[in-house]
């Protein structure tokens, strides 16, 4: 089953196209890893897939309510406990059960600690545990392993594998090898050309 279908997509940052002519699709059970140098536009692409910004050109089709997005910032409230943070996001997505998420990311022993007391890696794990309570099939992840130690990276990789095995999918921008059976998608060749006129009407600004 195709969960995300991207056709001839151009994404822009600050009104300037950064990647163009992207076409790919992601089916359930698939992991797509985006690679490319810093500033290539991976974050912009992921934000477009998550629906935070409109495509500059081309189309992104996603199954309804399919995408769960996680970025550099974890969206945690430092004065709420780990449990409260997770309960909030579970509630937003219409669920109550946060047990599995706590277990998968080894947060059980931390559940009553305020999120502000956690180390950077623990915060990251909590941010990723949020994905489990969204119950959405496609995880769109931007550099998820930043500030995770080796053990935590393994936890994360295991969680992604379990998610994908149960019919989900993941699109991940990362530089490290996570040991998946992944499809690698290098965005470098799609760098938008600057010397072509795309839109004859408002050409003057680009």
């Amino acid at each position, binding site marked *: 089953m195709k969960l995300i279908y991207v056709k001839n997509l151009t994404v822009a940052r*600050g*009104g*300037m196209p*950064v990647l163009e002519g992207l076409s790919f699709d992601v089916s359930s059970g698939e992991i797509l890893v985006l690679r490319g140098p810093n*500033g290539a536009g991976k974050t912009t692409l992921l934000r477009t897939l998550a629906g935070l910004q409109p495509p500059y050109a081309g189309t992104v089709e996603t199954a309804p309510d399919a995408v769960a997005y996680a970025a550099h910032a974890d969206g945690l409230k430092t004065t709420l406990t780990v449990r409260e943070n997770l309960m909030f996001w579970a509630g937003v997505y219409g669920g109550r059960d946060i047990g599995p998420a706590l277990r998968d990311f080894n947060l059980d022993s931390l559940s009553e600690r305020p999120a502000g007391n956690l180390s950077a890696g623990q915060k990251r794990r909590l941010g990723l545990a949020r994905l489990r309570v969204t119950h959405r099939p496609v995880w769109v992840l931007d550099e998820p392993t930043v500030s995770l130690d080796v053990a935590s990276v393994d936890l994360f990789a295991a969680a992604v594998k379990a998610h994908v095995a149960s019919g989900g999918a993941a699109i991940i921008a990362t530089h490290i090898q996570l040991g998946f059976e992944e499809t690698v998608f290098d965005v470098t060749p799609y760098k938008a050309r*600057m010397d072509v006129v795309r839109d004859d*009407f*408002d*050409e*003057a*600004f*680009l």
Partner: protein
Amino acid sequence: MASIWEWANPRKFMAWTDRALPVLSVVSACIFVIGLVWGFFFTPDDYRQGATVKIFYLHVPSAMMAINIWGMMLVASLIWIVRRHHVSALAAKSAAAIGMTMTLIALVTGAIWGKPMWGTYWEWDPRLTSFLILLLFYIGYMALWEAIENPDTAADLTSVLCLVGSVFALLSRYAVNFWNQGLHQGASLSLDAQENVADVYWYPALVAIAGFILLFVTLVLLRTRTEIRARRLHALDMRERVQGQ
């Protein structure tokens, strides 16, 4: 020449304004000067107010423009929101500074006129207060343009502000009327204006108003051209930065 929106193409806009502006500048300068000179030197003094009445030729047109320029910005903002023509958003941006200047001129000339008329430079009269509020709206609008780095984001957000601000400006106008019935005379110029103002004052006033409108059109075109060039420069800069990586 299929649609009027063709004029909103930046390149077309630059081309036709390039041809129109010299003529327009000369015409508006002439009309402006004729209106003011006629008004200042070739009208009789008022039997009650003496020569002070002549500040009318600055005060009334600038006050009218102050309000109408906000209306023009509202229309331009709507066009940007609906049709995404960059020139429209930039025209709204260009108009704001002129509108603010007109509001200031109206306030200052009003104060100068108010001293001999009412014995005070400033009174919290509904009309005066409304213009002060309008000035605040102009300042807020321009400040928002300046604060946002990305030009498209700035255009979007200022357009939303212009829309919401228009509603609240109207509400303020009503509220201020309610709050204090003032001593300002009713509008001196309206469709039945001849009843208020004698012909000898009325004709030069019309010319002065036409002069102000033309002046505004000239300035807004000029400033929009500047803004378009600034946008091109910004785009070039962005392009170089992206390519430099």
